[in-house]
């Protein structure tokens, strides 16, 4: 394969986000397959065309997030009353669920709870726990626009594309920014099947890079943000539980995170240049520049990695099972 073909088939991303960085840390080879080669596991539809399978968890999370956003916008931008905004959000949930089409059969008890009914109840209960008119839940306004569900991007200092030399950017998508009496708090909603009202659940967010990255992005837009809230929604078959976690992001934490991000991106580029230079075929006869972790990442959350069966656990990878569909952090996927 010529160098030009290699660069075309394996482009280094221009935009890095937290999903990519976490994938890189959990297994560099999975990062390479997903975010450089752009592979997504597919299955054949009724016309025998390869399509990327749907995940109940992702559909549920996406529809719920979309409903929460619609409700917050209806209240804060359109000026509807809380019950009118809730009704509009509920209607939005029903529409979005229908647009998703048929979903695969649930594979666990947790997934059994992730139905349209469950989504409507999680949405409704959310605003019972954190009411729209609660002074502590008010959205921050920038130039009159409420800070809800928006994408932000910022150049990563000292990081340039290994082939084109263009500036690389870091991107993220906020759920919301709250204004609590002049102090800005980032907000992220997390739905899960596990228990949320515990120290364990809260402490998992203390160093979560996703939120540190959001604070750094917000600072790029001139917003001083050093606190982050996580709204946890535990979805069960017959009820939902809610809990809030508050974590701080002092400037030193943000700076430390940024230094790590820069170092990670430089390492990704180093591996990428080695890959392009050595022009490796698909047979993994030597260690791949994007190494395989051979550990927890192969079966994280009791689910096999999408590359386990056809790439990593086979002598000659079978790429027929995949479609090329690259993740773009700046694209909205839940509209």
């Amino acid at each position, binding site marked *: 394969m010529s160098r030009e073909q290699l660069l075309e088939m394996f482009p280094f991303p221009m935009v890095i986000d937290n999903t990519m960085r976490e994938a890189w840390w959990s297994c560099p080879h999975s990062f390479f397959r997903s975010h450089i080669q752009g592979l997504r596991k597919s299955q054949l539809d009724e016309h025998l065309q390869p399509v990327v399978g749907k995940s109940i968890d992702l559909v549920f999370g996406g529809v719920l997030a979309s409903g929460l956003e619609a409700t917050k916008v209806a209240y804060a931008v359109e000026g509807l009353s809380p*019950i*009118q905004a*809730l*009704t509009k959000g*509920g*209607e939005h949930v*029903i*529409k979005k669920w*229908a647009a998703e089409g048929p979903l695969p059969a649930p594979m666990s008890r947790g997934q059994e709870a992730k139905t*349209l*009914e469950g989504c*409507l*109840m999680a949405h*409704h209960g959310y605003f019972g726990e954190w009411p729209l008119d609660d002074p502590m839940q008010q959205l921050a306004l920038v130039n009159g626009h409420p800070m809800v569900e928006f994408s932000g991007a910022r150049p990563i200092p000292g990081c340039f594309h290994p082939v084109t030399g263009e500036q690389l950017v870091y991107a993220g998508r906020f759920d919301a920014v709250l204004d609590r009496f002049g102090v800005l708090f980032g907000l992220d909603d997390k739905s899960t099947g596990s228990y949320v009202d515990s120290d364990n659940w809260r402490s998992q967010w203390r160093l979560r890079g996703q939120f540190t990255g959001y604070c750094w992005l917000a600072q790029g837009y001139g917003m001083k943000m050093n606190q982050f809230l996580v709204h946890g929604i535990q979805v069960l*078959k*017959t*009820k939902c539980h809610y809990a809030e976690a508050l974590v701080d992001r002092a400037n030193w934490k943000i700076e430390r995170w940024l230094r790590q991000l820069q170092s990670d991106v430089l390492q990704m580029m180093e591996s990428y240049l080695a890959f392009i230079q050595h022009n490796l075929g698909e047979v993994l006869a030597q260690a791949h520049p994007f190494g395989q972790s051979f550990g927890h990442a192969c079966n994280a959350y009791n689910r096999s990695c999408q590359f386990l069966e056809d790439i990593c656990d086979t002598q000659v990878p079978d790429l027929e099972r995949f479609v090329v569909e690259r993740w773009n952090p700046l694209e909205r996927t839940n509209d």
Partner: protein
Amino acid sequence: MQRTDIIEDETEAQIALADARLDVANGKPVTPDRYRALILSIQRGRESRAKHLSTVTKAKAKATKAASALTMDQMQDMFRASAAQDESN
């Protein structure tokens, strides 16, 4: 009787939801009253389900306990049978 109530509540919730989905698909807006009624109906269905699950779990636990508990007489019979077996060997 309990089971019939559950089926009724859950079925009512399913019907209310199906109606709402049909109306939304046809572009008919949901009113706040309709939304409240829908949420209440789903809530009732879920509460009935929870009650039913609790009853079933309790009944199962009771049955398991009853099956595993041996009376003193039954235990003595078991020991005697075991001792007789040892002697004959």
